[in-house]
């Protein structure tokens, strides 16, 4: 087991370096001067050169990359051009809200997906299966930002049950576990849950079908086990894969929350990314993407190791 974990970790190192390189190059891919956001239009040549030196943009690229990585390893992701605050502080400030939203959505998506998938797989090719698979296809095909708008129209505009935007009463972004705050989480979480719900339904349905057609199920029934007992065996066998898929989906939600956070003005990393893009705040853009991508890599690692722990067959391959 330990050697498997060690191998997996060693394999991640080049990926992390690659990710850092991509994030770094993003800024240099961008057309125009990265300082355009802070520099007044009538700035003198000296001021421009001074600022360029202050941000380190005057050095050769490999040197800049080296410095950037070294600083990042020491927890310094640079300074946001728009706000003047450290990038890492800005990202860490926002990431909590994104994680909360992703976890809530993952819980909803996992519960619905596993339930629908088990039912669909068990009652394969009946009308129940057709309904469940239709819901799954809709889940993976729906433009989630549009689903968010539709939910706002129904539950905020028409019924006036839930708030449309924000993360707390009076525009506050501090969190508390009471209904006044939690009602802000409902619509964004439901919206984010659509895709994982669809994907997990499909996965679990296929798994259930495969498991039910295996010989051991026949044996269980032959020895007189009731259907509830058979069902429990199906759940046990489907769990590792379903959890691995959910882990990946959690990562996708953490990194891909920009559209949903924009629709709901949810103050997380997605909204931060949005403002970084439109204020051309390249250090903030770079830093946010790096943190989110590293989260994703780390989550993948955890999922792989967790899966290998539950299912010993994986280690050997």
């Amino acid at each position, binding site marked *: 087991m330990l050697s498997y974990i060690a191998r997996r970790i060693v394999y991640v190192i*080049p*990926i*992390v370096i*690659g*990710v850092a*390189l*991509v*994030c770094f190059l*993003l*800024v240099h*891919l*961008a*057309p125009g001067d990265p300082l355009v956001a802070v520099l007044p239009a009538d700035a003198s040549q000296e001021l421009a050169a001074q600022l360029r030196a202050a941000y380190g943009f005057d050095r050769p690229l490999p040197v800049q990359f080296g410095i950037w990585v070294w600083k990042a390893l020491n927890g310094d992701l640079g300074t946001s051009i728009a706000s003047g605050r450290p990038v890492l502080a800005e990202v860490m400030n926002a990431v909590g809200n994104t994680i909360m939203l992703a976890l809530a959505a993952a819980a909803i998506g996992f519960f619905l997906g596993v339930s629908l998938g088990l039912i669909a797989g068990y009652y394969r090719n009946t009308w129940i299966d057709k309904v469940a698979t239709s819901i799954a*296809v*809709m889940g*993976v*095909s*729906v*433009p*989630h*930002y*549009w*689903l968010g*708008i*539709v939910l*706002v*129209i129904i539950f905020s*505009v*028409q019924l006036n049950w839930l708030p449309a935007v924000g993360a707390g009463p009076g525009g506050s972004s501090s969190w508390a576990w009471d209904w006044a705050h939690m009602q802000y989480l409902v619509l964004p979480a439901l919206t984010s849950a659509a*895709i994982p719900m*669809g*994907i997990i339904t*499909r*996965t679990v349905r*296929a798994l259930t079908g495969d498991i039910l057609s295996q010989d051991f199920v026949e044996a269980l029934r032959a020895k007189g086990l009731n259907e509830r007992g058979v069902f429990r065996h199906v759940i046990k066998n489907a769990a590792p894969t379903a959890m691995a*898929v959910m882990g*990946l989906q959690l*990562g*996708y939600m*953490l*990194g*891909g929350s*920009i*559209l949903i956070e*924009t629709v709901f003005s949810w103050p997380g990393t997605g909204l931060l*990314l*949005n403002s*970084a*893009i*439109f204020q051309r705040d*390249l250090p903030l*853009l770079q830093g946010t*993407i790096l943190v*989110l*991508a590293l989260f*994703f*890599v780390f989550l*993948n690692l955890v999922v792989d190791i967790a899966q290998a722990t539950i299912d010993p067959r994986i280690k050997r391959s």
Partner: protein
Amino acid sequence: MSAISEPALQVPAKTKSSGYWATVGRRLLRDKLSVLCAVILLTILLAALFAPWLGLADPYQGSMIRRLRPIGTPNYLLGTDELGRDMLARLVYGGRLSLLTGILPVFLAFIAGTTLGLIAGYAGGKLNTIIMRTVDVFFAFPSVLLAIAISGALGAGILNSVVSLTIVFIPQITRVAESVTTGVRNRDFVEAARASGADTLTIMRVHMLGNVLGPIFVYATGLISVSMILASGLSFLGLGTKPPEPEWGLMLNTLRTAIYANPVVAALPGVMIFAVSICFNLLSDGLRSAMDIRN
């Protein structure tokens, strides 16, 4: 795998017989749902293509006194938008950019990814390692994040959003192409071709390509749904085309101010994205099961 859908990749062990594609076509035509999806997609595509000849209203001509008319208004079948422009015309014309930015990246990535995957799979060794490890790096980014990161760095624009989505899909298609190619490479008929003195290019073109294109194509059709959602999502954020150009994602964004006054009209552009996306998904599923002849 992509953020939005992970079509279970099933590579049908294809037996190359003269009637393979004819059989697949026949099976697909028997699948009512696939036919329905194909008809809907063709209708939307043809309407977008021939929009100027359909006798629609001018999609750019607004009027301050006719803003946000409801669905069913005489002369404005689907109502009017926040600037009084005819929604039907804008939805039909909007298909031009939306379909282009949704389909083109997958097409470009199909060409580039298949090439890279074929090379990696056939060459093996060091070249394979270099290509596939680079692909792994791109898989370390959730696809929405990667698309937005590249688009955001390049700045708004249709070309930039096509470029960013193409970069998102190339690694995904390369990975599939490589695994299919590796599978085919070790089959006996390739060995036989090599033994009979065929050069690498001939083997790739004659013996490999025909056997790997099918599964890669099916996978790529499944990506169009994701691509449509992402492309419209980029314009929804303001990273695609600019107003007053009709485009579904952008229309959805500018109509957000109208969700109180006229919610149904405000939701219409999303219905188009949803319809196209779900049809491509179902069609791709249908194609996959039609190609799996053993069932």
